[in-house]
């Protein structure tokens, strides 16, 4: 048996059994963060806090939600919204946070692209992050089914139809996914399970992977500078805190992080209390009706850019390009052939243009996806979709010609 001595304190007792001091050092006080960062480095913690808000509000919604096609709509819109004390608060938090979490994810993603935080040993951070994006998308979609309103039903119809593969006519696959010829009880039941159990489990696991992927290569900094974390942390521990390029994760970095989180929470709860309607589509306040399509079907804002890549083409090409748009970001670390790890603006004209065009083009795609597919909007959408695809195809060529900075 291993040797244990009589504990001198509760901390010592735990330390002998769980090595809590070592864990605390590895995870917090001797997890070194560069000083040369800005508020955009706080988005990870903002996302953690938002995820916790979604989890807690979801737990309270789960207690009154009824996952049957006859009762789901009323359990949300009557029981939770009117009968349960503060039920509206949980629903508003859940709906608003589910929308805002994607805004923060996109900021987090484009921060990573701008500063080259997916390069040279940080590939797994990027890949696990993109897997989280996929998992969050699936979580958002499955959650959108649950109120069983008109948008729930028709979004469910359209998205499951994507799996017929266009001209492949895999209708049997679509019926298998739904468990019925159309979205009905079997469909609602399985998406309820996915939303409250399987996908959240996957998200928690992926968050663990995302953090673990960060621990060895460490966080990037504003100049993409390669830092000798051993030397710099030694300098810090030896007392030269001002001269060291790094600081402790806790409490140094966390104190700045939580400052940004505080500002974010004020913004989030302003939306929750006074401006929540953007997250609750009026069409979804009509109960699901399989015999009546709403006049305009559009996804939530965070899916609009990829929806707009699907829309202007015939079904097969549209599906291929839609699939391309869904997966292509994962491969960014391998498509970017440049030796440089530094901000996009310092990597030469080509990549600078690529970055800002990608960002603005995705905003254009988002805007066009919301507008009805007619006239000039159709044309702008088509051009923007083509530009998106061309940009990704051009990326390896642009970046392999990039000069070492």
């Amino acid at each position, binding site marked *: 048996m291993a040797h244990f001595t009589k504990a001198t304190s509760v901390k010592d007792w735990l330390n002998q059994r769980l090595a809590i001091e070592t864990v605390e050092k590895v995870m917090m006080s001797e997890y070194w963060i560069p000083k040369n960062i800005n508020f955009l480095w706080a988005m990870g913690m903002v996302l953690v806090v938002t995820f916790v808000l979604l989890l807690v509000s979801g737990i309270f919604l789960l207690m009154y939600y009824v996952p049957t096609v006859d009762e789901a709509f009323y359990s949300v819109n009557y029981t939770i919204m009117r009968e349960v004390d503060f039920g509206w608060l949980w629903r508003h938090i859940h709906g608003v946070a589910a929308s805002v979490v994607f805004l923060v994810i996109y900021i987090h993603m484009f921060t990573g692209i701008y500063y080259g935080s997916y390069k040279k040993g940080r590939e797994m951070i990027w890949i696990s992050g993109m897997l989280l994006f996929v998992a969050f998308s699936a979580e958002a979609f499955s959650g959108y089914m649950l109120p069983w309103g008109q948008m729930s039903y*028709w979004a469910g*119809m*359209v998205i499951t*139809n*994507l799996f017929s593969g*266009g*001209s492949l*006519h895999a*209708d049997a696959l679509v*019926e*298998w*996914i*739904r*468990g*019925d*010829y*159309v979205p*009905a009880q*079997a469909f609602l039941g*399985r998406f309820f399970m996915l939303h409250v159990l399987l996908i959240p489990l996957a998200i928690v696991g992926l968050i663990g992977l995302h953090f673990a992927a960060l621990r060895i290569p460490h966080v990037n900094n504003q100049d993409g500078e390669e830092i000798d974390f051993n030397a710099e942390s030694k300098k810090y521990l030896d007392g030269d805190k001002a001269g060291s390029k790094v600081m402790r994760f806790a409490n140094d970095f966390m104190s700045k992080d939580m400052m940004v989180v505080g500002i974010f929470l004020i913004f989030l709860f302003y939306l929750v209390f006074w401006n929540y309607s953007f997250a609750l589509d009026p069409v979804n306040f009509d109960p699901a009706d*399989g*015999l*009546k*399509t*709403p*006049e*305009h*079907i559009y996804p939530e804002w965070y899916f609009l850019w990829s929806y707009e890549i699907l*829309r202007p*083409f*015939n*079904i*097969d090409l*549209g599906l291929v390009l839609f699939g391309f748009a869904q997966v292509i970001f994962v491969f960014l670390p391998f498509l970017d052939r440049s030796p440089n790890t530094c901000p996009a603006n310092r990597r030469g004209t080509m990549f600078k243009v690529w970055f800002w065009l990608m960002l603005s083009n995705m905003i254009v795609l988002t805007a066009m996806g919301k507008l009805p*597919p*007619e006239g000039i909007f*159709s044309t702008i959408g088509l051009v923007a979709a083509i530009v998106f695809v061309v940009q990704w195809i051009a990326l390896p060529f642009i970046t392999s010609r990039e000069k070492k900075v």
Partner: protein
Amino acid sequence: MENNSRRGFMGKAFGAVAAVGAVGSLVAMKKTWDPLPSVKAAGFTTLDMTVYQEGVMVTEKWRGKPIFVLKKSAEVMENEKGNPAAEARNIKIGDDNFMVAIGLCTHLGCIPAFRPAENDFLCACHGGMFDASGLVTKVPPPRGFDIPPFKIDGTNLILGEVGPEWQSMKDNGVTL
């Protein structure tokens, strides 16, 4: 050495047990997600075709899907003449001619709206259009409305059962 081969054997033995279990559970999981027998059994609808009026589009329901029933006027029939694609989709019951089709856009399954003035269908989701015989007049939909399996029984139409008229439509590629 002896130990190694024993460990190797144990590893392979466990691998075999695990493989059988994995395949078995995948089969069970797949089958659990299949449509239930009660869902499949409820898949028949009988329509009395004498009640429809010319030019009035009626939406019926079969397997939870909308079914468009449009009794065609003489004028529409005149337009269809010489258009083999439209003629092949015509369903004749007694002296009356019908368009009967699954009312879901073949693009991604939204329900197109009937426009009586234009006598056509417009899908709000992605702008697809269909004419009164169910053929595509504007993309993205890849093909005309699908025609549900039907059997003509006097003046009744039984949806979900395969009759000779529908079988020949399917064989000739008129519908899926």
